[in-house]
């Protein structure tokens, strides 16, 4: 019997910063001091505080260690596990807390409400028994032994659960449509083709709690009358793929997937399909086409997948986070779920916090939480005392939320009303050093690259928009371009074939709406207010501050700086490549951008 558990995060973030080596060393050290029968090391999914990884949590105390290195392991073992003295220097420290800090005591976790992420960082995702211990497969048992398919759909409908993949379509309604179509063959699909830059919540669920997705898909299979599920997961998520396969194998071994599940006569099985990472394959018709083994391109709707989907059969497709909510709704009831959140957006949403924010990572918050709470309380604010400018949500399909809208409760409808969208949940924080035109250009570059090329508005239209943006950031834009950009944006929105094209202009439209002044500055004053667009800025030396130390000249890669010792230096603008090295190196703050 173990008295203590050491949980080491094995999510992608922590793995890339070396957590697997920590696990190995931890096991060795524990054996060396003879604690192997008392302390168990568990590899878990993501805790959410990816910026501070690798993360190690020691239970029963719940001591939260961050930024752990392999060299720290012997100290943790000898001091904490053997002698009971937590290693203070490694404990996650918000401001200046004293003493051992438990996970739930931190501001980062206090305001969160974990439903989709409830098992992430708690269980070992490669052990089905640990999932079962956290009420795993109980929802499936309940559904198969005591509920009719229609009752299952009714609970999901009543809960108010909406798709977490982007558009927010009511999940129960989707299931109902498909259930209503008579057919012997139907399919249940899981969209794990998470492609928004900076979004990784689906990956974390798959890595930390894969069985929750399998169980929910089986429940949906029963509800709509399907016997086969497919998970379309991107091949760039090797850990998620591996754990999903382990989970499927274990579920089959226990007959929680397979024939006659729980002796109910219901058969269901799930297979994985790996995507090659095309963004468009996150669109439902393209995803299904890709599962069929064809080139991943969207097709016009209707017919909707609920009527004619995968292999021409009625199918439903939900994204990973949506699935992760289903079992809890079945177990705890639709009233429990619909009590969380706002009027039209129920439950919680997972956001991947990134960009200019202290706590980069994953957070799950009740719908209706304000952006201010997410950024200032949970996210720990913006580093280096910089000023908040905007938050970008919804990735390449979404838009920006400016500072003046920070107190709007976040839900599907509010985000759309201010010109952004929930998207899959990427939340990138921008500060005063970010140029909004440049941000719009970044996202458009992404969509231009990811456009499948099937329809003209998206293939050619987005490219033309990008060219105009490039012109503006080079200081060659005209007021006419701005008008053309806007017209094109609305035209593409109305005419593109699928969601990718229809939403591609959003980053441009929303930045033009809230940060028009920055566009105007680029066009009229030939000036980039944030100092990002290289063509519009120059580095200069203030002769009054320059001491003539020669450091800038020595470090300049383009030999653009000249001057003699103890005399003010000068930058030759024709040679300068605007790399900013001189500014970083100057000890007297004599170099400035304008």
């Amino acid at each position, binding site marked *: *019997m*173990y*008295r*203590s*558990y050491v*949980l080491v995060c094995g999510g992608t973030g922590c793995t890339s910063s070396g957590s697997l080596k920590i696990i190995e060393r931890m096991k060795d050290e524990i054996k060396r001091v003879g604690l192997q*029968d*008392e302390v*168990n090391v568990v590899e878990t999914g993501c805790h959410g505080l990816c910026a501070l990884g690798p993360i190690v949590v020691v*239970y*029963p*105390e*719940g001591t939260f260690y961050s930024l752990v290195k392999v060299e720290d392991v012997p100290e943790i073992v000898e001091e904490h596990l*053997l*002698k*009971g*003295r937590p290693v203070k220097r490694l404990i996650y420290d918000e401001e200046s807390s004293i003493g051992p800090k*438990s*996970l*739930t005591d931190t501001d980062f976790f206090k305001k969160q409400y974990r439903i989709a992420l409830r098992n992430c960082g*708690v*269980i070992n995702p490669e052990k089905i*028994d*640990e999932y*079962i*211990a*956290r*009420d795993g*497969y*109980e929802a499936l*048992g309940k559904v198969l*032994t005591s509920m009719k398919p229609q009752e299952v759909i009714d609970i999901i409908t009543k809960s108010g659960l909406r798709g977490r993949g982007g558009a927010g379509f009511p999940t129960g309604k989707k299931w109902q449509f498909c259930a209503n179509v008579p057919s012997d063959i139907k399919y249940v699909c899981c969209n794990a083709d998470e492609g928004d830059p900076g979004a990784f919540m689906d990956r974390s669920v798959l890595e930390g709690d894969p069985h929750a997705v399998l169980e929910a898909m089986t429940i949906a299979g029963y509800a709509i009358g399907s016997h086969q599920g497919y998970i379309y997961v991107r091949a760039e998520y090797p850990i998620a793929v591996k754990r999903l396969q382990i989970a499927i194998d274990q579920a089959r*071994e*226990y*007959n*929680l997937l*397979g024939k006659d599940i*729980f*002796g109910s006569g219901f058969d269901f099985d799930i297979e994985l399909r790996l995507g090659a990472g095309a963004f468009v394959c996150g669109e439902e018709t393209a995803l299904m086409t890709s599962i069929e083994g064809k080139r991943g391109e969207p097709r016009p709707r209707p017919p909707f997948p609920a009527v004619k989907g995968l292999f021409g059969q009625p199918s439903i497709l939900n994204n990973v986070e949506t699935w992760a909510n289903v079992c809890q709704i079945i177990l705890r009831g639709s009233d429990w779920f619909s009590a969380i959140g706002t009027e039209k957006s129920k439950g919680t949403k997972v956001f991947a916090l990134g960009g200019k924010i202290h706590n980069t990572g994953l957070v799950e918050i009740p719908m209706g939480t304000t952006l201010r709470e997410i950024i200032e309380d949970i996210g720990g604010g913006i580093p280096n005392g910089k000023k908040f400018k905007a938050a970008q949500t919804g990735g390449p399909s979404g838009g920006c939320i400016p500072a003046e809208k920070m107190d709007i409760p976040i839900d599907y409808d509010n985000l759309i009303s201010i010109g952004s969208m929930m998207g899959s949940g990427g939340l990138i924080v921008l500060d005063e050093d970010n140029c909004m035109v440049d941000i719009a250009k970044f996202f458009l570059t992404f969509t231009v690259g990811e456009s499948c090329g099937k329809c003209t508005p998206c293939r050619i239209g987005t490219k033309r928009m990008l060219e105009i943006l490039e012109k503006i950031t080079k200081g060659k834009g005209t007021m006419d371009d701005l008008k053309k950009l806007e017209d094109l944006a609305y035209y593409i929105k109305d005419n593109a074939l699928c969601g990718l094209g229809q939403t591609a202009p959003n980053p441009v439209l929303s930045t033009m709406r809230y940060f028009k002044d920055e566009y105007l500055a680029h066009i009229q004053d030939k000036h980039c207010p944030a100092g990002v667009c290289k063509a519009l800025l120059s580095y200069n030396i203030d002769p009054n501050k320059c001491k003539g130390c020669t450091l800038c000249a020595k470090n300049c890669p383009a030999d653009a700086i000249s001057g003699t010792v103890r005399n003010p230096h000068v930058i030759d603008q024709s040679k300068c490549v605007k790399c900013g090295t001189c500014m970083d190196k100057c000890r007297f703050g004599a170099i400035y951008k304008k």
Partner: protein
Amino acid sequence: MICRRTDEGEKMKTLEELKAIRDRMKNQIELRDDNNEGRIRVQVGMATCGIASGARPVLNKFAELVQQKDLTNKILVTQTGCIGLCQYEPIVEVLEPGKPKVTYVKMTPEKAEEVFEQHLVRGQAIGKYTLATQDIK
């Protein structure tokens, strides 16, 4: 040794079988609960002095009993450092919300069993093992 998977490879047919797995795994998982509010805290002194005088078997005894009796959600067994009374080690402190701290000294696994039964389960501190009744010179 804890992961006895007797039914490994067997097909699960009933909800009872699912429940059996859940019950078997419950204590392992509850130990990872962060909600320590209202839990009784049993702290075993595990500094060099504590370990030298036999604190580890005491700690393990408590951990074992708590898990065996399904009390992991009520009692937290943890370690602490040296509290300075090295000659009285192994020292065990019982902290119960809303009650004064009880400190047991010179513990053994056998005494631990008594403390578990009488104090932790029935709520009666065992006076004769506490610090107050020992002479501190």
